[in-house]
């Protein structure tokens, strides 16, 4: 592992660079193919409305993957991730236009867990259209 952030250099409250990730219908089609998740609620508006959704929604695992990037880009080595968990609280609704939706991700160091292992817990705040879409979004990473 080769984290580029040193354990000694972070403290509780250290903020990670916030990011925003665009997601369009094309993004979802591509993710469906790459992940093998072809649930029609992620690409078929008629089907999504039939099951009571406002529109097509993003794969929860897509949102989880985007949120992780704030942590892995910060730490430099994705292999430094020790734990990562989320709760899917609200769907990311993706309209059929050129703009799509945006997933906003912010994160900060919530705890320094182990001085020997140099692990910290990062808490993420993940929103779309002003609503929290992931809850309990936490990662544990091993720093340099």
């Amino acid at each position, binding site marked *: *592992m*080769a984290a580029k952030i040193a354990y000694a250099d972070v403290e509780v409250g250290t903020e990670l660079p916030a990011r925003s*990730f665009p997601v369009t219908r094309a*993004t979802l089609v*591509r*993710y469906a*193919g*790459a*992940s*093998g*998740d072809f*649930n029609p*609620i*992620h690409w078929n508006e008629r089907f999504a409305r039939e*099951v*009571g*959704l406002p529109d097509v*929604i993003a*794969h*929860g*695992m*897509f949102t*989880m*993957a*985007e949120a*992780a*990037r704030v942590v*892995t*880009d910060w730490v*430099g*080595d*994705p*292999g430094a*991730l*020790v*734990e*990562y*968990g*989320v*709760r*899917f*609280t*609200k*769907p990311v609704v993706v309209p059929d236009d050129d703009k799509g939706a945006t997933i906003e991700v912010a994160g900060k160091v919530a705890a320094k867990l182990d001085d020997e292992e140099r692990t910290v817990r990062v808490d993420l705040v993940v929103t779309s259209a002003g609503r929290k879409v992931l809850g*309990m979004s936490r990662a544990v990473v091993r720093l340099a």
Partner: protein
Amino acid sequence: MALDQSFVGRSYPPTAPYEVGREKIREFAEAIGDTHPAYTDPKAAEELGHPDVIAPPTFVFAITFKAAGAVVEDPRLGLDYSRVVHGDQRFAYTRPVRAGDRLTVTSTIESIKSLAGNDVLDVRGEVHDENGEHVVTAWTKLVARAPEDEPAPEQGE
């Protein structure tokens, strides 16, 4: 409606090996828009201490979820899969998944609960490589909504 509680603690036999390919990792990284070189360039991965390109952290879900499918679709369990949404997801890594891995998944039903009429199922998937070494554990919480619910799933999977 109630699921068969005798399934709690039940483990399913390891899946047939899934061989992780470089190009599949590349396809996945491109689909999530992640340009980190460790996902596509063996040299960049090596500089970080990895023997081959590594997969983004959530890549392994496709493998563990497929393994969990054999569990949740077991007709004796009694889960109505058409009403299932993804509640929580968590991973604990010993090391990142990498190209060339031949991964097997052993799935276990950790708990079965009924909350406000919804069936809540926790499945743990232990992922090991061809040497039997632990790579990652995935915990997946699935929620089968009660039929009388407003049809408004929080999140699909």
